[in-house]
């Protein structure tokens, strides 16, 4: 049963990822990415990360993808997008990575390593959300604050970059 769920999610994720890259119309690309985000959220649920699954749908599907769709529709693109001349480079990098993965798999076999004993951040009897909150606000307090700073910088930067004119003497791009 678990395996059936995994293979369903994995199959849809892989196919949707290929569609994101292969489809010509950027809107179809974005919608395919939406399907992938939903299935990644489903995969998180099977991995006992319920809170992350909710956040994945809210932030990725709700915020990021809507932003993408806005920009795609705002720019009103013509469909003259063809593949890049760089495709030999893409083929070289892709095939190298595939061969590397195959070699690693063959050499290592499919045996799984031993499960490490629980650390201080072990998920105990409490729920997933409580465990994440516990760790986030104690061990990872400083990175959490830095993340808020990153968001602030991104907000200011996005407003400044996308603004048309700042007082009339903005540098022309």
């Amino acid at each position, binding site marked *: 049963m678990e395996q059936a769920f995994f293979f369903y999610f*994995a199959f849809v994720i892989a196919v949707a990822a290929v569609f994101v890259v292969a489809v010509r119309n950027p809107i179809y690309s974005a919608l395919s990415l939406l399907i*992938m985000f939903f299935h990644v959220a489903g995969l998180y649920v099977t991995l006992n990360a319920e809170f992350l699954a909710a956040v994945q749908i809210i932030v990725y599907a709700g915020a990021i993808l809507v932003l*993408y769709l806005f920009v795609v529709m705002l720019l009103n693109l013509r469909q003259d*997008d063809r593949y890049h001349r760089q495709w030999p480079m893409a083929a070289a990098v892709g095939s190298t*990575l595939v061969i590397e993965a195959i070699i690693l798999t063959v050499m290592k076999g499919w045996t799984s390593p031993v499960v490490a004993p629980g650390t201080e951040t072990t998920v105990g009897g409490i729920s997933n959300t409580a465990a994440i909150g516990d760790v986030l606000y104690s061990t990872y307090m400083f990175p959490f604050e830095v993340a808020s700073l990153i968001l602030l*910088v991104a907000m200011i930067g996005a407003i400044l*970059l996308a603004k048309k004119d700042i007082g009339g003497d903005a540098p022309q791009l």
Partner: protein
Amino acid sequence: MTIPLSYYIVLSGIVFLTGVVGVLLRRNIIIILLSVELMLNATNINFVAFSQYFHDVAGQVFVFFALTVAAAEVAVGLAIIIALYRARSTINIDELQLLKW
């Protein structure tokens, strides 16, 4: 847990590879940013799988940080695209060679 960890690693490898190929292959900047999102999601799948495997919630915390950076990247990247489109009225990367030597 009946699914081996290696399955998750292979899945995330496939998705990451698709993202790399998309970045190298496509000319549309928006699709390139979408491919970067693919790569970030591949790493997130890995993080969560290892977090479940080691029974350690720290991996899920790092997914949060990756998510924050992804949101910031999208906001700034799309703002740059809009500014570029305003200045050049194209988002085809073959025609944006200002920084190329």
